């Protein structure tokens, strides 16, 4: 048998728990989103930052960069970042450049 006082206590504890949990979950989600965004920005910089050295890269590396760009494009599409569209556009340009370089190397090999 529970007394009205203990019931009131339980109710108060439940409300307090709710009040603590809801903001915590918001903070958690926000942190996750921020972490995701900085993740793809970092990845973006690493991928697109290699265009200037693409001429010196072997075909395998160019192939990998091109595939990684495709994967990251899909990841950025899920982002709510206001600049997401711009980064997708830039990454597509980098990917296309790596493919272009790859095709050039393949073509040179055929000619030789």
């Amino acid at each position, binding site marked *: 048998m529970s007394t009205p006082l203990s019931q009131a206590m339980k109710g108060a504890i439940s409300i307090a728990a709710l009040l603590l949990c809801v903001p915590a979950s918001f903070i958690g989600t926000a942190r996750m989103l921020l972490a995701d965004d900085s993740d793809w920005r970092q990845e973006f*910089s690493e991928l*697109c*930052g290699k*265009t*200037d*050295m*693409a*001429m*010196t890269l072997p075909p395998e590396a160019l192939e990998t960069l091109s595939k990684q760009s495709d994967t990251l494009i899909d990841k950025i599409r899920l982002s709510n970042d*206001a*600049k997401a569209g*711009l980064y997708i*556009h*830039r990454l597509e*340009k*980098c990917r*296309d*450049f790596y*493919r*272009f*370089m790859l*095709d*050039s190397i393949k*073509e040179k090999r055929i000619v030789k």
Partner: protein
Amino acid sequence: MSKNILLAAILLVMSAVFATAQSAGMLKKKVPRGEYGNVIINNFSEKKNIAPVVFNHWLHRAKYTCRLCHIDIGFAMQAGGTKMTEADNNKGLYCGACHNGKEAFAAEEKKLAGLVVRPECDRCHSYGKKVDFHIDFSQFTEDFPKSRFGNGVDWISAEKQGFVKVKDYLEGFSIKGKSLSYAGETELKAQAEGMPDIIFSHKKHAVWNGCELCHPDVFGVKKGATKYSMQEIFEGKYCGVCHGKVAFPSLDCKLCHSKEVM
């Protein structure tokens, strides 16, 4: 000697072809030097009863590389191709990437005689208006090395001699530590017999444009695999994407067809 006569004859014929092409409307009408490279942006302006934007390439190219705007900020290479809105700019995209009151002036509201005005709007939305611009083309470029065509400035020399210092990095947009290592020059065979071959400097182009601005969108061709003609360049393809619109026009034959004729 006879080769020189042949070269002179070819240049004469080419000039006649250019003149005919111009009269047939294939080449753009000559514009005042200060207006060369200007782009009228009117995707949404007039629909909102605002004067279209007159974008002056000369001032922007004196301060930033082509790559910074056309790659990092994402401006299309075709006039009017970006379709940016005021909301985009307010979010810090496109023009708003720089015109934010920090990097460059912003369209801030000010109180003037009790009225709320945005006096800076006219500096961009200036089409058909008499606007007192803060920087004048003739004064700005007065001491710059000269070129015969386009806006009359030899921009490569202007940069080399320190008249302009172009920025290639914008916080929040550019990638840190990118540096172009490719400094090669490519020789391209001229199609017209007797015409000097082209010495194409990848270095000069890469410093301003990076790699992915041109490849593969503008030049999807593999080295030597596809031949393109002057006609196509005049129509705005290949080199004509920039040369004839913003960079020096293709009328200045000797700047590209520069290989010494032996």
